[in-house]
């Protein structure tokens, strides 16, 4: 920034009396302060973002255009070859399907549950803070601990869920072997961790809805469910959009749950039945095939943008509004 100063000096009209140099200098410093300071204040974020966000993104794109193996010194440029291979790769589409499937299975019921929970907590309630804090507890638990415990619950031979099944005479399920059963199990873990967190965000938004609307509705004889549908949801729509988008992004990036489910298998099950996109990337990085892994990363980025965009349009178009 200091290098800009002389330019400004040159920009001063030459015919102006050069008399009090100090005044001019003070004036310039003041100008710089007014014009430059705001940028200086926001600069740290953008510098950090460039270093840790933008640069890796661009560099990943660059790597994805090469055949880049860590143990070799040469990285020949291959253009879009990695992407071409990727689009013809069964495992990639398998991972995409799994990611979307787990995403839908976990996000949709989760958000409904979160809104309902927030709605319940939005009423006058004894020990309010206690309940609200309780909602957040699953989220502060380490993801590894969550997955380990849930994997035990979903165990085939000694799992509690299969034990309950056996009590009512139903055969145990090999949760991690089937496609749907493993997706269901993983979605449960995600829901357990994130429902309360999202409920709190909804709750915060609901607190901002004017009380009078509810009072008027109550006088008109609207039930709790009707109030939720006709008042609360339309009023917190921007928050819903926000939560839908963040949850979608989160769901697209699921890694720890499928990685640790049943055991540390990077293929996501022996038949890749719960291999997600993140796992597929991880697998190729551990194979040190960096070009290919970068190509997958970029495809995943594109997917996230597309899916988040679709969700945005859908949630925005949803009917409602108080008018």
């Amino acid at each position, binding site marked *: 920034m200091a290098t800009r100063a002389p330019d400004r000096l040159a920009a001063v009209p030459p015919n102006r009396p050069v008399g009090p140099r100090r005044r001019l200098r003070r004036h310039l410093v003041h100008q710089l302060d007014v014009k430059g300071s705001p940028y200086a204040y926001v600069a740290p974020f953008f510098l950090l973002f460039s270093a840790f966000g933008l640069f890796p993104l661009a560099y990943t794109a660059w790597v994805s255009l090469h055949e880049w193996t*860590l*143990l070799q010194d040469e990285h020949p440029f291959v253009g879009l070859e990695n992407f071409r291979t990727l689009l013809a790769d069964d495992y990639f589409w398998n991972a995409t399907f799994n990611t979307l499937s787990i995403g839908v299975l976990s996000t949709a019921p989760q958000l409904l549950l979160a809104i309902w929970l927030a709605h319940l907590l939005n009423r006058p309630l004894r020990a309010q803070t206690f309940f609200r804090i309780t909602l957040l507890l699953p989220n502060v638990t380490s993801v590894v601990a969550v997955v380990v415990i849930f994997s035990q619950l979903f165990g085939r031979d*000694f799992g509690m869920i299969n034990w309950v099944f056996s009590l009512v005479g139903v055969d145990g399920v090999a949760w991690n072997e089937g496609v749907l059963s493993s997706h269901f199990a993983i979605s449960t873990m995600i829901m357990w961790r994130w429902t309360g967190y999202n409920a709190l965000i909804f709750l915060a938004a609901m607190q901002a809805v004017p009380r009078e609307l509810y009072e008027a509705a109550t006088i008109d004889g609207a039930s709790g469910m009707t109030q939720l549908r006709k008042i609360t949801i339309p009023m917190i729509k921007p928050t819903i959009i926000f939560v839908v988008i963040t949850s979608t992004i989160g769901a697209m990036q699921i890694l720890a749950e499928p990685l640790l489910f049943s*055991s*540390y298998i*990077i*293929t996501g099950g022996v038949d890749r039945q719960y291999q997600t996109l993140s796992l597929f990337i991880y697998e190729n990085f551990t*194979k040190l*095939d960096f070009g290919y892994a970068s190509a997958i990363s970029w495809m995943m980025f594109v997917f996230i943008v597309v899916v988040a965009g679709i969700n945005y349009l859908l949630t925005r178009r949803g009917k409602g509004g108080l008018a």
Partner: protein
Amino acid sequence: MRKLRHRFLAPMVAVSALALGLTACGGGDAETAGSGGTASPPAEKIKLTVGLFSDFHYAPLYEEFKKTHPNVEIVERRAQFNDHHTNLITQLTTGAGAADVVAVEGGYIGAFTPVPDKFHNLKEYGLDKRQSEYLDWKWKLGVSNDGSSLLGLGTDVGGLAMCYRPDLFKKAGLPTDREEVGALWPTWDAYIETGKKFVAGKVEGAKFTDGPGEHFRAMVEQAPIGFYDAQYNIVAATNPDVRKAYDTGVQMIDAGLSANLAAFSPPWNTGIAKGTFATMVCPAWKTGTIKDQKPGEGTWDIAAVPGGGGNQGGTHLMLPKQGKHPKEAAALIDLLTNKESQIKLFTEASALPSLPALYDDPAVKDFVNPYFGNAPIGKIFTDAAKALKPQPVGPKAGDVLQAIGNGLQRVDQGKQNAEEAWAQALKDVSRIK
């Protein structure tokens, strides 16, 4: 302007000096250490980092090392097994972050022997004098592919045995004495026949074996050539011994012997304690794994492995070239792998020595493990290690094993038949570069 610059210069120099100092501590410089002979003055304080993937029970040996090297401080770093090796590759390539002494397991060593320039040559520190002490094949694993450089010294070998549960054998009407049990299965076919007898005995809630994966690995490693040929090409698809091992694994599944458990998964761990399977392939170090599950003393016993001997796992200690103090680090490796240390590690941590002279040493040969019904593990495991025929280990042997092992598990889970699973496994293998 000049003055201004000077005012900034002093702190700048100080800061960069500090930064240089810090990176030096991290052990980042690959250039200066290259000459090998840059010995540092003895009085200087030195910190050596040791990178391992589990508890090797080295702590008392470090103390011993400090007696002769009072100026050396030793710091141990541990990571998860897979992560440890992947990290090491990254650190070697990026030229920073590797520990002074690193452990490399047998399944991974093939990834490092083609790149001798990333490691200090231990010959320069006189460690090639130890060659005569070692099992020949174990020694060769630590030599670079071109034979020019000695990269690592072996710590332990994973002599093979078969662990079994006498209580379940008794219920099935099979013999329980370890000599008789071992005699039941001179070959893998005989092992399957025994398994069928076990199934006929109708033992409630127990299968004959955990799963076919580890058996498959053992059979492949008993063959003269495994997944790689002598020129380090992947030959898994064409090697008849690999296919034979796969078919034998499928036979175990078809005969209903498998509990369909992946080794080291949580339900497998529970199964060890609860007895959902009666036998499992057992390299020496796995006796520690069994103990950790606390099945109770005498619950498991140890017998000879089908097919006569073999090895699974085992580790080498190596010196990445980034290390600043190769002389001291080499001395540390020497101590950690010498006779006395290997005996200690065997009795304390079941790490089977890689020095054959010790196999006749009473401290090893006559060692019995009370936890396994006083099994003479010294004799069983040393017999297995002696009987081993070495085979070339390729750089991605672990990945190949995983791909075919997954195929066997798909058969075990009833998702695919043997041919479909084999075809898909070979497709996965062909993706390994």
